């Protein structure tokens, strides 16, 4: 039977979001907006030391405070659940096999604290103020220990051990080579080397983490959890295991989420502690992370030292590329991913759209007494692009070849091909076209002229390019390409209700991406319904089928694939009913405008409501061969990997007197295949670009030499503001992906994957007259001044 596919009315349209009005009216519901009867409030006692033995904890004075309901330490809780082990409680989360040294993280540190902010006790009280008062009265007998602060030193034999149970601070080493890198280096006319330090970042969503747990005991025992998160169903799976509570008695609800960016795609110790204390006190308990906790004790990301070597011939053809990635990953493995993700994905993305035969990498992830590092939008890929694009510009500068031209000379063709690292099965793209288009949008040649003119006036602008690729649509095969054989499964349930309403139920767990709008667009088109008929239900384990959650630029592709399949099932059933009723052939039934009609005779039509009424309530009007008349289908979709691509160019001006870098322009040419809603795609790009500017110029998580965190407030960790980010000049190229049902590719991370490399290169380009090497992020005004002072000193030394 072949049922017609409806015409697109909504896909590709710039539709405003249906979720906006409630958010604009202050009627969203975030975790901290939820108030339950009898609810108590938790606060954590955290280590002020980077590394310290806990000789005892005295809670008596705190417990005596009126309104304090209970105080719990590791001795009270750690035997009840845990420890948390990355790569074990995984269910699709791990990216490593057995060759990882496992950190076993207790719910509350009982013997040693391993980073500033490590939690050692939790106070539950009538309100948060009291809970924090009580935290100050908890007396911990600390014995400070020498801290491991530098990942490079952590590798030496005489370094203190972050985890004495492990043989080394280096918890994973992996390497890879294709071709013969050393031979290519040895015979190449030019070899370039540099060390690049990608600084610590933080996803830092504006809404910090938060959880409410309501544990009921007795015959109706069960746990309901409200949590600001990206993976409702996986959270239920993790908690079910750890709390030994059957999934049927565990409900996870994710309300509105104030940004996630990967941070909220983890399992944290607090997520287990809060349900346990709810059980112990027999009342609902809420914990809302404050900003200090967020900055000190959630997850940081992507602190990686990159040792880069590139070999080129006289024409700038790249002959070999070798990188060593050394991750400073903090005190514990993040659950579920393991700390290999940053160095691993840096390595797996180091080749991008370059055509190089001899490529090799090594990756190491080294424990230190700092905040653990985990997933942040663009995991590792940002580092990979920074490392590669930075050395590519070095090659261009030293061989005096234009950086656009050098990239074009080394660019792969547009057709699908296999990149040996992974291997990644590229789904084809527009790698050179995006470079050319970016150059045109930029007005490149005039800009270079202006750069020279301004230099005469003592003003220094720089142009930096990144030709990027984004590994998106994460599913089983993408995971396999990154070294993990973990199946993914995501279900979507599509229902036509008796009155003709269409309900899309999905466990994908959005945090600002606009799924209520985009999935409705897609479902409306796939069924031929009106947009207003469609409602999207999401992120509640009791109302939606299983999903692996929203992360890795996957929701759009995964959700749309499953919706398209389920819609096909429903169209078939509805076409059968309509054909029977209208006395037409099933093949002649077409869908559109909320109706099924006979082709060529549009007046012969049934509305969705009329069809549904027959399906639900009028068996006598159903065709005999209808089978089950149910207008519901639950389907899954596990896409092949997609590789979006594009070119971003940053134009910056560096004030050499103050060291301040101002981002003047960002030109962003991207190809994410078929676009579902261009407004939302552009919004994802612009937001990622801002984060990329932030992480390359402003945002810093500094530790002093003893391991003390210096960036515990938003006055130290600087978000980019409206004055720091230009409006992004976005241009699209569309190469539909042959790998996905919808032709879409993942796009949500490209802004942050690509922008830092462009900004770093732009600063280096601006400062090129001074012969300085930009070799780290973030590039703060102090850093620029230090580079210029050093350059001045060395040039003076050379002339004397």
């Amino acid at each position, binding site marked *: 039977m072949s049922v017609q596919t409806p015409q697109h009315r909504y896909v590709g349209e710039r539709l*405003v979001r249906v979720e*906006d*009005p409630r958010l*604009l009216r202050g009627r969203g519901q975030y975790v901290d907006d939820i*108030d339950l009867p009898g609810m108590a409030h938790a606060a954590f006692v955290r280590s002020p030391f980077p590394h310290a033995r806990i000789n005892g904890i005295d809670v008596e004075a705190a417990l005596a405070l009126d309104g304090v309901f209970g105080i719990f330490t590791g001795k009270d809780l750690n035997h009840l659940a845990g420890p948390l082990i990355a790569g074990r409680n995984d269910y699709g989360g791990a990216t490593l096999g057995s060759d990882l040294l496992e950190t076993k993280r207790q719910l509350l540190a009982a013997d040693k604290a391993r980073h500033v902010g490590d939690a050692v006790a939790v106070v539950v009280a009538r309100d948060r*103020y009291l809970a924090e008062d009580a935290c100050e009265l908890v007396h911990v007998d600390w014995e400070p220990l020498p801290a491991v602060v530098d990942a490079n030193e952590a590798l030496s034999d005489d370094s203190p051990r972050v985890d004495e149970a492990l043989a080394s601070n280096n918890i994973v080493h992996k390497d890879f080579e294709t071709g013969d890198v050393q031979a290519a280096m040895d015979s190449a006319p030019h070899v370039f080397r540099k060390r690049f330090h990608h600084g610590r970042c933080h996803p830092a*969503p504006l*809404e910090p983490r938060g959880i409410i747990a309501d544990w009921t005991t007795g015959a109706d025992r069960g746990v309901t959890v409200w949590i600001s998160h990206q993976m409702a169903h996986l959270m239920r799976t993790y908690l079910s295991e750890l709390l030994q509570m059957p999934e049927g008695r565990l409900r996870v609800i994710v309300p509105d989420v104030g940004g996630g960016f990967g941070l909220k795609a983890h399992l944290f110790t607090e997520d287990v502690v809060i349900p346990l204390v709810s059980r112990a006190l027999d009342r609902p308990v809420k914990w809302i992370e404050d900003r200090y906790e967020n900055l000190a004790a959630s997850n940081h990301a992507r602190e990686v030292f990159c040792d880069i070597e590139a070999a080129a011939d006289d024409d700038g053809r790249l002959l070999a590329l070798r990188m060593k990635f050394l991750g400073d990953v903090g005190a514990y493995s993040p659950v579920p991913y393991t700390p290999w993700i940053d160095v691993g994905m840096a390595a797996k993305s180091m080749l991008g759209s370059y055509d190089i035969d001899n490529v090799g990498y090594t990756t190491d992830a080294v424990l230190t007494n700092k905040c653990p590092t985990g997933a942040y939008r663009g995991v590792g890929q940002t580092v990979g692009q920074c490392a590669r694009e930075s050395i590519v510009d070095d090659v261009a500068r030293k061989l005096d070849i234009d950086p656009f031209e050098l990239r074009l000379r080394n660019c792969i063709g547009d057709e699908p091909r296999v990149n040996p690292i992974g291997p990644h099965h590229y789904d084809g793209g527009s790698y050179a076209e995006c470079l050319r288009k970016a150059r045109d949008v930029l007005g490149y040649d005039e800009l270079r002229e202006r750069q020279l003119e301004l230099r005469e006036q003592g003003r220094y602008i720089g142009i930096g390019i990144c030709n990027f690729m984004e590994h998106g649509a994460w599913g089983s095969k993408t995971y396999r390409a990154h070294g993990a054989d973990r199946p993914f499964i995501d279900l979507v349930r599509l229902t036509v209700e008796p009155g003709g309403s269409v309900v899309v139920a999905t466990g994908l767990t959005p945090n600002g991406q606009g799924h209520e709008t985009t999935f409705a667009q897609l479902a409306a088109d796939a069924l031929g319904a009106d947009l207003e008929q469609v409602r999207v239900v999401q992120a509640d384990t009791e109302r939606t089928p299983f999903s692996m959650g929203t992360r890795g630029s996957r929701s759009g592709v995964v959700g749309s694939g499953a919706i398209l399949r389920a819609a096909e099932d429903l169209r078939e059933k509805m076409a059968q009913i309509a054909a029977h009723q209208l006395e037409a052939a099933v093949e002649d039934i077409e869908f559109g405008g909320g109706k099924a009609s006979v082709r060529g005779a549009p007046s012969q039509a049934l509305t969705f409501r009329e069809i549904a009424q027959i399906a639900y309530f009028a068996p006598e009007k159903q065709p005999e061969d209808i089978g089950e008349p149910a207008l519901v289908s639950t389907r899954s979709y596990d896409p092949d990997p997609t590789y979006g691509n594009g070119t971003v160019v940053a134009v910056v001006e560096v004030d050499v007197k103050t060291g301040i870098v101002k981002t003047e322009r960002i030109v962003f040419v991207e190809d994410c295949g078929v676009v579902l809603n261009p407004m939302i795609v552009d919004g994802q790009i612009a937001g990622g670009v801002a984060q990329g500017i932030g992480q390359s110029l402003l945002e810093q998580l500094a530790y002093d030499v003893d391991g003390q965190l210096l960036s515990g407030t938003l006055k130290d960790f600087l978000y980019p*503001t409206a004055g720091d980010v230009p409006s992004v000049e976005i241009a699209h190229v569309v190469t539909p992906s042959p790998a996905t049902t919808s032709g879409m590719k993942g796009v949500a991370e490209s802004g942050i994957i690509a922008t830092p490399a462009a900004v770093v290169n732009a600063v280096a380009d601006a400062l090129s007259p001074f012969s300085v090497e930009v070799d780290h992020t973030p590039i703060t005004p102090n850093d620029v001044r230090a580079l210029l002072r050093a350059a001045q000193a060395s040039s003076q030394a050379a002339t004397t």
Partner: protein
Amino acid sequence: MSNVAPVSDGSQDLRVIRVVVNGETHTGMAESRTLLSDFLRHELGLTGTHVGCEQGVCGSCTVLVDGELCRSCLTFAAQVEGSRIETVEGIADGDELHPIQRAFQDNHGLQCGFCTPGMLITTRALIESNPDPSEAEIREHLSGNVCRCTGYAGIVAAVQQAAREIASADGGGA
């Protein structure tokens, strides 16, 4: 369990605070140290005002107190006794979105929505004091409000549209 405390007797430093929020008189209890943000959210149930840092930096908690922009996370409830406060819940006119809110929707000036209440209140104050702001003025005025999602482009465009619409509506009424 030995570490579970006896139930509290509830004695504490509480006072009655009377404020007019969005035109309605509200009375609630607050300790001397209760922050205005917590008073609005947890005592009066006006959860549209958000708390992103409690350090006075992110701007999510911005409200108007007697017409002045105010970081409610850096203000004690006791300080605003008797004041008129405007929060995000008071911007729309019943079912009808305010032109500023409509402009934010039209221009994709919000994604997760967490910074949005502070952005709307700050925008309203800007347009009231400067009906025709330049892009640079908008960016400067909003520089105390952080957005982690949008990259600000949609927000800036929204403020421009809202200023235009409000000016033309005012012009039409004059």
